[in-house]
């Protein structure tokens, strides 16, 4: 079977090379047969990669330890589901998943555009195939998952305990669907430059592909945060870990693009800037995979030793250099009319929003890579972690929050003084009122106050936009109440989907504010019968429990939890000692409500028989998860804008 696996990846590599060559030659000569062959070869890459995934997946589930990858990442005590999920636990498997998703995007692209005879779409397919050449090469020649062991062990090394969590079953694939999805916008952008294509219709297609990937990447980031919250046991959800940063960066630049693309669609401006953002988003996606899988920076995610680092660096440098050279070469194509009526306009606010998104990305990139740079320059090791990012990124993020409110209420082209007065008065008053309400309640400091003001400002602008839309439709629509809102939203899904996303953003900001600024913590060793008090909660230790789980010994503290004297039942924060890795893992006990989470951790059982318990109250943390779901729903709503799509399809045909 391993020979078939190796062969499938080798043939996939050859097919990818053939696809690029055939389409390139077909575009040059105009021979339709060559273009068709190139497209078919990309289909073959997808099929062959799927075959490779099935073969390695079968070996993982069967625990066939003759495969080195299986022996390194699974063990007999793993459930079949976790054994299969080991596919994305290591470097080779992750890259194979990357390739499968890449090839699937290629296949989806070919399917959606199968009736388009325009060679431009062949050029897009060629760019996708070019990236597939890189990944198939890595998997066929550098780090094959089908490497065999001469002396297979009786049992494998097991799966990293951190990954033995149901969240890890879906977090990496969702994240990868987001990361890899930026290949299509990138391919469109490069194809436009290669084919010297004018017009803006392609930009709407790119916007939809970008939105799709952006949604998955954002959801993947959120799942990662949730996983960190329940699995890492430090009371938080975002530690500015290099790999968290790596997933955030393409999302930030993608967000910038989704705003600035509106200026190009409406005004035909910022063409060069938009192509640059597409290229940067894709390069940061590759960089994220490089960080995750190369082990170049130390983090909890860097499980694998690098044998692919130089290849990735070469690919990132090579592809970004080529893309930049193309942008410069086709400068004339990207020239815009670039005329504006006024700086104070929605266009202006979007441009400043872009500056902030890119600045936030730059700050994150610099902070993530700086320890390596600093060590190379000064020779001394330093850390750049949460304390740095909280000081540098938070003010930039808050400026973005304020612009999130200002942008939608500024008119396109020119915002007159009367428009500014009309649209800013209520949100500003709401912001001030909310701020004043928060001051006597213990919330102080510039950042919390700006967060409260900004959140109230944005929420009010969104409500005003809905109210204004309802008022405008009053004369033409007879429906009232909820139906009127539904009708209003379905008439312009793109606009109102955007507002839903903004609502989600505000919820996340409020959730972060609550769970970080007014978080409470208590910790101390307890004897049986003693109580730890935190806020309104009392945690009384009833004793400890020991039990055996597959692959691990579990120690739990049994806590009677009550709030204001009312019993909330028992909670069992635990520590699991995994036999294979001899690694202790924290199992958090959570009491979740909409208002706050009670987060309990077992520190350990001490030599004197006491049990160390650590507890946090995380106010409003549920708003982060709900806000994330609201953002996903808003994006789905925006993507469902089929009427516009159909109209454009008709125009295209």
């Amino acid at each position, binding site marked *: 079977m391993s020979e078939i696996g190796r062969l499938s990846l080798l043939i996939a590599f050859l097919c990818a090379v053939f696809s690029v060559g055939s389409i390139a030659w077909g575009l040059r000569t105009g021979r339709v047969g060559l273009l068709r062959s190139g497209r078919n070869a990309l289909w073959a890459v997808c099929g062959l990669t799927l075959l490779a995934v099935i073969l390695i997946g079968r070996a993982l589930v069967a625990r066939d330890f003759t495969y080195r990858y299986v022996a390194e990442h699974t063990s007999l005590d793993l459930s079949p589901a976790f054994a299969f999920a080991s596919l994305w636990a290591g470097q080779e498997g992750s890259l194979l998943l990357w390739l499968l998703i890449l090839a699937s995007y290629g296949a989806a692209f070919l399917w959606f555009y199968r009736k388009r005879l325009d060679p431009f779409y062949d050029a897009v397919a060629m760019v996708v195939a070019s990236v597939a050449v890189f990944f198939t090469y890595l998997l066929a020649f550098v780090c094959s998952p089908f490497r065999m062991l001469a002396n297979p062990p009786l049992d494998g090394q097991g799966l990293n305990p951190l990954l033995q969590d149901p969240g890890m079953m879906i977090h990496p694939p969702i994240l990868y669907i987001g990361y890899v999805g930026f290949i299509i916008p990138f391919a469109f952008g490069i194809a436009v430059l290669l084919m010297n294509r004018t017009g803006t219709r392609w930009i709407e297609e790119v916007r939809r592909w970008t939105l799709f990937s952006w949604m998955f990447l954002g959801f993947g980031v959120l799942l990662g945060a949730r996983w960190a919250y329940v699995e890492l046991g430090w009371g938080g959800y975002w530690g500015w870990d290099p790999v968290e940063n790596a997933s955030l960066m393409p999302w930030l630049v993608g967000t910038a693009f989704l705003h600035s693309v509106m200026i190009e669609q409406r005004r035909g401006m910022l063409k060069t800037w938009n192509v640059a953002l597409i290229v940067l988003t894709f390069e940061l996606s590759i960089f994220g995979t490089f960080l995750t899988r190369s082990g170049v920076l130390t983090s909890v995610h860097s499980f694998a030793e690098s044998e692919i680092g130089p290849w990735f660096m070469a690919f990132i440098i090579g592809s970004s250099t080529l893309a930049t050279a193309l942008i410069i070469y086709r400068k004339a194509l990207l020239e815009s009319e670039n005329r504006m009526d006024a700086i104070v306009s929605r266009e202006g606010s979007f441009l400043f929003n872009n500056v902030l998104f890119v600045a936030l990305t730059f700050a994150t990139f610099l902070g993530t890579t700086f320890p390596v740079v600093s060590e190379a320059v000064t020779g001394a090791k330093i850390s750049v972690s949460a304390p740095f990012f909280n000081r540098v990124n938070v003010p930039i993020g808050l400026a973005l929050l304020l612009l999130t409110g200002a942008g939608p209420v500024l008119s396109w082209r020119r915002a007159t003084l009367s428009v500014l007065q009309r649209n800013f008065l209520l949100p500003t008053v709401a912001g001030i009122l909310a701020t004043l309400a*928060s001051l006597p309640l213990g919330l102080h400091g510039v950042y919390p106050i700006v967060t409260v003001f900004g959140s109230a400002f944005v929420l009010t602008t969104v409500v005003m936009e809905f109210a204004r839309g309802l008022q405008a439709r009053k004369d033409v629509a007879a429906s009232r109440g909820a139906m009127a809102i539904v009708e209003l939203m379905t008439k312009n899904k793109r606009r109102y989907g955007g507002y839903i996303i903004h609502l989600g953003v505000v919820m996340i900001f409020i959730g972060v504010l609550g769970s970080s600024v007014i978080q409470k913590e208590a910790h101390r060793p307890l004897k049986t019968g003693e109580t730890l008090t935190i806020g309104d909660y009392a945690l009384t230790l009833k004793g400890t429990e020991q039990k055996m789980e597959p692959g691990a010994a579990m120690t739990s503290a049994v806590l009677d939890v009550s709030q204001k004297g009312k019993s909330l039942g028992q909670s069992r924060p635990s520590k699991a000692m995994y036999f294979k890795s001899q690694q202790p893992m924290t199992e958090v006990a959570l009491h979740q409500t909409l208002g706050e989470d009670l987060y309990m951790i077992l520190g350990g059982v001490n030599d004197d028989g006491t049990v160390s318990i650590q507890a946090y109250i995380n106010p409003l943390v549920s708003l982060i998860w709900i806000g994330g779901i609201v953002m996903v729903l808003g994006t789905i709503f925006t993507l469902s804008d089929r009427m516009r799509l159909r109209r454009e399809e008709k125009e295209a045909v």
Partner: protein
Amino acid sequence: MTSGPRRAAIAALLALAAAAAFPLSARANESAAGSKEDPARAITSQLICPCSCGEVLSGCTCEVGIGLKGYVDKELKAGKDKEAIEASLIAKYGEVILGAPKAKGFNLVVWVAPFAATILGFGIATMFLTRWVRRKRVVAVGPDGAAGAGTPGAKAALDQLRARAEAELREMKE
């Protein structure tokens, strides 16, 4: 704004103020003990666990982290201040224990560059915006609504403006 949307917006505003006040009031009467104002936490939240876990010390649950948190508590009780405790930890583990590098020497770059880049970005954006606004042709329109001096060029510009207004109105109706 007409009265309907204004009423809705005022209602939303009041609801928002109430919503903002509710969760915060729940926390208002609690003491600062164990909160972010805890002096031990003020120190440990700025440090990184020196073992390979790489966690911020305040949230670290590994043995090394718990040991160091105990050390910080002990030193605070002994009357040492934040600077003295940090200095003793840096002497033992090196600057790598700080969650953010000190803003001096080469490490100043990481503190200055993000804000410098943001200011530079704003400057460049403003410069481009100003240039694009200047490029916009100004059409003088007379009090009767006719274009400027009635020149053919001005009339064409006015027609162009009318067409644009109609297109935007159509777009709004959609």
